[in-house]
């Protein structure tokens, strides 16, 4: 909502600088977005009268004007063609400054002296979209006489400040000058001065000439019509044009401008019909027929629906109620007689109509938000008053006003102590009454309670809490003391799940992995890119009805596609190394109309010169051990479509599959344009969470020395290290403390398809120092088993 400050001052006594007014308004709930200094930087422009126009001797397209600026006659060369002798125009004299910091100096144009410049609206800083048709090309020709040589800015009140307010959806009444003025008055403790409306009228009565019938009483709550005879359509006066322009409305002609002016002033949309194009004498407000065609005044033929409310005469539709008038009954330059409509249309109905037609207008937006039915007559009368004032038509004596169910002021009962309880204040009842009355809410104290009478334009005030806000905001939110909540003891903290998430992130960070975050929605094609099986659960998506595009049209069923996307982006940007992980949710459909399963998953990815499968595996192992999970093992997985068949493993924890890790399959690499081998893991985070051991107890540090023994065995290539380790673990007895694989050798002295695997074993007894015999016995047993079960032979 754009509010020109000079106009606002017509309703409220405002002495404050605009910036201070803006701050106060913001703090009382009308948030100021911007303050625009209108006409700022323009100086040296005076009123001039064109006394003569002579051809330019050296240029066909230029003319020489004699311009009277009061004390002086200037010679000004111009290229404009819309001027004539006797026109009053803005003249930028030598040394003037125009919009865009354009400086004007005396000079010669094609050999002829030019002592200034005649100005267009554009040069005066008016936005192109707000310049009327008449003023679009050429010089700004004023519509009447002004004192010659007078400061243009002063005379037409050009210089102003325009405040832009953000109006919240609960206050459609503030989408008007009067509404803002009411707020300003309450904020500043002033009284608002409403316009004094008085319509003289002529002898003839409108009610003798026309009738209004509301058939659709749901769609139309009130319909006021006034008739105006012998109108003269022309440009409206400069003061009105100025106000419209500053409020962001383009001047069109006097009748349209007046209806727009009153709409800005009161918030009531108005429409003028060419009375002579209405058949018969009856205006009927009724529902449209399904599929009916109607041409709106923007020239578009529209197909109507049966829910839409229409204004019609006996033969045809005239307008789509609250949205737009029809082309046929539009006011034109030839219009002589007018029917002025000031009606109240249902907000839901108007919103639906506007939505169904895909047609949003100033009127439909206002009706959708809500316009007080009690405004209709006031606004209609205000229009008529302005028509009489400008002497551009004769207003017929009475108004036709069909208003079946008059909306009355609401009565509400408020407890002052409850208001103070909610706000945390001790505001006296007397002050509360004063505040409410400043907002034009009548309040009487009856038996300790306030009986409030709420005006019909304040539909937002329904409950006590609403009054807490009204009283609080005018009292000042900023002066309400800040306190801390007292009352019962509450214990803060994170859930176990969150604490474990933190722990997981810490562990991965410590191993050099950066956390990444990616969208919860993906393209359904991602499952093809990672070659998911055709019958996989990962193809069963939770789908969006209205996605932004295919790329974000389904909820992800895995974290891997996004991670590969991120890896791909990093590789494309020549980032040499990458270690990353995402901990997030995946979405699996449940039943019809049930919320989907949201399951936490962990994806880890790595690439880089020094990285391989075992970097990734080490990170997974580190994470598991760091989480207190020891009961895990890896098994080769040769059939997972996303991964390299020889470089992929499943992770088992306590016998359950908890995830997969591996080198990305070359075809998948190709699908993501990866040129560096990448390694990824996907883990079921809910299993980790369930099995993580948070509580630990201390184990005493060893008192007795350890004995270490190495051995190397030669085995067939296909024997897994895991099988050797199982034998070591199963046969190590109580004295085997730990073991470590330190070498795998293939080549000289080792026959083909064989490898030599070397381990260091550490033995220790908790109660005494071990002897060689103790250790030999166990070590021999382990080696024997490896020989017997795996066909290994001890290497010398």
């Amino acid at each position, binding site marked *: 909502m754009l509010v020109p400050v000079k106009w606002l001052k017509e309703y409220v006594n405002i002495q404050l600088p605009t910036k201070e007014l803006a701050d106060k308004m913001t703090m009382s709930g009308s948030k100021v977005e911007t303050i625009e200094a209108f006409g700022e930087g323009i100086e040296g422009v005076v009123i001039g009268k064109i006394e003569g126009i002579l051809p330019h001797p050296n240029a066909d397209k230029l003319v020489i004007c004699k311009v009277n600026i009061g004390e002086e006659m200037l010679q000004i060369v111009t290229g404009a063609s819309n001027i004539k002798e006797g026109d009053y125009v803005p003249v930028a004299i030598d040394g003037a400054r125009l919009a865009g910091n354009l400086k004007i100096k005396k000079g010669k144009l094609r050999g002829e002296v030019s002592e200034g410049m005649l100005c267009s609206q554009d040069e005066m800083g008016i936005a192109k979209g707000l310049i009327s048709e008449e003023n679009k090309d050429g010089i700004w020709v004023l519509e009447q006489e002004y004192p010659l040589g007078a400061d243009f800015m002063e005379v037409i009140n050009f210089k102003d400040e325009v405040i832009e307010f953000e109006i919240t959806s609960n206050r459609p009444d503030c989408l008007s000058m009067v509404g803002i003025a009411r707020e300003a008055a309450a904020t500043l403790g002033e009284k608002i001065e409403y316009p004094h409306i008085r319509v003289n009228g002529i002898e003839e009565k409108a009610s003798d000439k026309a009738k209004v019938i509301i058939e659709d009483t749901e769609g139309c709550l009130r319909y006021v019509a006034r008739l105006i005879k012998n109108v003269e359509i022309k440009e409206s006066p400069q003061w009105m044009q100025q106000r419209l322009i500053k409020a962001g409305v383009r001047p069109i002609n006097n009748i349209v401008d007046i209806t727009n002016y009153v709409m800005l002033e009161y918030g009531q949309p108005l429409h003028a019909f060419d009375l002579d194009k209405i058949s018969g004498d009856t205006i009927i407000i009724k529902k449209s027929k399904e599929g009916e065609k109607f041409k709106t005044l923007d020239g578009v033929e529209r197909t109507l629906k049966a829910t839409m409310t229409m204004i019609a005469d006996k033969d045809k539709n005239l307008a789509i109620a609250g949205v737009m008038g029809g082309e046929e009954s539009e006011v034109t330059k030839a219009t002589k007689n007018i029917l002025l409509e000031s009606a109240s249309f249902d907000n839901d109905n108007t919103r639906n109509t506007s939505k169904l037609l895909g047609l949003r207008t100033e009127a439909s937006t206002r009706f959708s938000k809500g316009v007080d039915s009690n405004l209709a007559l006031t606004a209609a009368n205000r229009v008529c008053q302005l028509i009489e004032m400008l002497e551009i038509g004769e207003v017929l004596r009475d108004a036709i006003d069909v208003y079946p169910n008059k909306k009355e002021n609401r009565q509400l009962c408020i407890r002052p102590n409850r208001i103070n309880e909610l706000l945390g204040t001790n505001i006296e009842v007397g002050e509360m009454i004063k505040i409410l009355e400043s907002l034009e809410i009548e309040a009487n104290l009856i038996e300790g309670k306030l009986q409030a009478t709420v005006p019909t334009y304040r539909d937002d005030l329904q409950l006590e809490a609403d009054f807490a*806000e009204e009283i609080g905001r005018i009292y000042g939110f900023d002066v309400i003391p800040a306190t801390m909540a007292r009352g019962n003891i509450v214990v803060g903290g994170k859930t176990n799940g969150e604490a474990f998430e933190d722990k997981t992130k810490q562990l991965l960070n410590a191993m050099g992995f950066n956390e990444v975050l990616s969208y919860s929605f993906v393209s359904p094609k991602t499952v093809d890119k990672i070659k998911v099986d055709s019958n996989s659960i990962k193809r069963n998506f939770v789908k969006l009805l209205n996605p932004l595009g295919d790329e974000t049209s389904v909820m992800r069923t895995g974290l891997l596609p996004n991670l590969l996307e991120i890896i791909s982006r990093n590789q494309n940007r020549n980032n040499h190394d990458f270690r990353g992980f995402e901990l997030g949710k995946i979405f699996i459909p449940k039943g019809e109309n049930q*919320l989907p399963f949201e399951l936490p998953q962990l994806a880890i990815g790595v690439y880089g010169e020094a990285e391989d499968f075992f970097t990734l595996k080490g990170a997974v192992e580190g994470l598991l051990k760091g989480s207190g999970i020891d009961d895990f093992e890896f098994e080769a997985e040769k059939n997972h479509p996303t991964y390299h068949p020889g470089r992929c493993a499943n992770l088992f924890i306590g016998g359950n599959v908890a995830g997969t890790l591996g080198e990305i399959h070359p075809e998948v690499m190709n699908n993501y344009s990866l040129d560096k081998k990448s390694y990824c893991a996907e883990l079921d985070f809910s299993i980790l969470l369930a099995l993580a051991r948070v509580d630990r107890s201390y184990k005493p540090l060893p008192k007795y020395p350890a004995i270490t023994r190495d051995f190397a065995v030669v085995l067939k290539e296909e024997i897994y290290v895991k099988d050797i380790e199982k034998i070591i673990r199963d046969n190590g007895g109580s004295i085997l403390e730990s073991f470590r694989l330190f070498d795998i050798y293939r080549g000289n002295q080792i026959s083909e398809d064989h490898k030599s695997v070397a381990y260091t074993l550490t033995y220790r007894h908790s109660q005494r120092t071990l002897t060689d015999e103790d250790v030999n016995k166990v070590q021999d047993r382990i080696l024997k088993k490896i020989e017997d079960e795996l066909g290994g032979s001890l290497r010398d």
Partner: protein
Amino acid sequence: MEAKLKSLEASAKSEIDKAITSDELEKARVKYLGKKGELTEVLRGMGSLSPEERPIVGKVANEVRASIEASLQAAKENIKGKELQQKLKSETIDVTMPGKQFKIGKKHPLTQGMDELKDIFIGMGFKVVEGPEVDTVYYNFDALNSPKNHPSRDMSDTFYITEDILLRCHTSTVQIRTMEKLKPPIRIISPGRCFRNDTPDATHSPMFYQLEGLVVDKGITLGDLKGTLEVFVKHFFGGHTKIKFRPHNFPFTEPSAEVDASCFKCSGEGCSVCKGSGWIELLGCGMVHPNVLSNCGIDPEVYSGFAFGMGIDRLIMNKYEIDDIRLLFENDIRFLNQF
């Protein structure tokens, strides 16, 4: 004999003085004091002396021995010191060479921000709770007193899965879910992902993060809301930060307010971060609407509460002066490493 001893002493000392290394010194020691050393040889010859001479020569011999030993000891220490100096010198490195590179992983800047926020509110007794990203129209709109025709319900604003199921457009859903489950006193925060039908550009993202807060108990006031948020702002942005509590309108709170903080960058003078206004819009908040309490089976006549919700992405972008929200979800490693 005495003369011989004296000359031995002199030659031993001269040799000790000449020794530069520990080895040379050891050679000198063996030469004079070793089992076959010259002094030892001389002393062995003592037996041939007369009983009168023996004590006198013996005394001199002992003095010579002590003197040589003292010289040896002094020289030893001297050489040890020199050798240490030599060793240290030879071990000198170019300390300006680069250190070994460790890979340090970091949490995503949004997580870091969320952690900071959680810590602040946990310190004030708030529990962290979570809610689903896919939720019902009831939890996202109806129960929150959102009018049936509110524009945020439009398909052009909110992503739908079915007519009744959607991607939550704010974390306020968790208010309802919490109040349905817990009895007052309630004091929770809930961070999480939200979704809105916005085409991504520098300032919009179809997915973003919010943090919701909710307090319900007997006697909770708007003043308490102000106090709580003041503590938060001073923690997060610093003790000098001022806050502005502006009346506003939300369907689920009444009274409602928006909170601005004085710009942490320019302290209110106006800069690029606050777009010249000196203030940064932080969050929306208010007293829980009585209809919302009733919808959750909490009697608004007995209890009152406040709620607030803030965009975490915006907070983080302001704090680190990140000018494009898309950077947060691109996950370029060079970006992530900066935080």
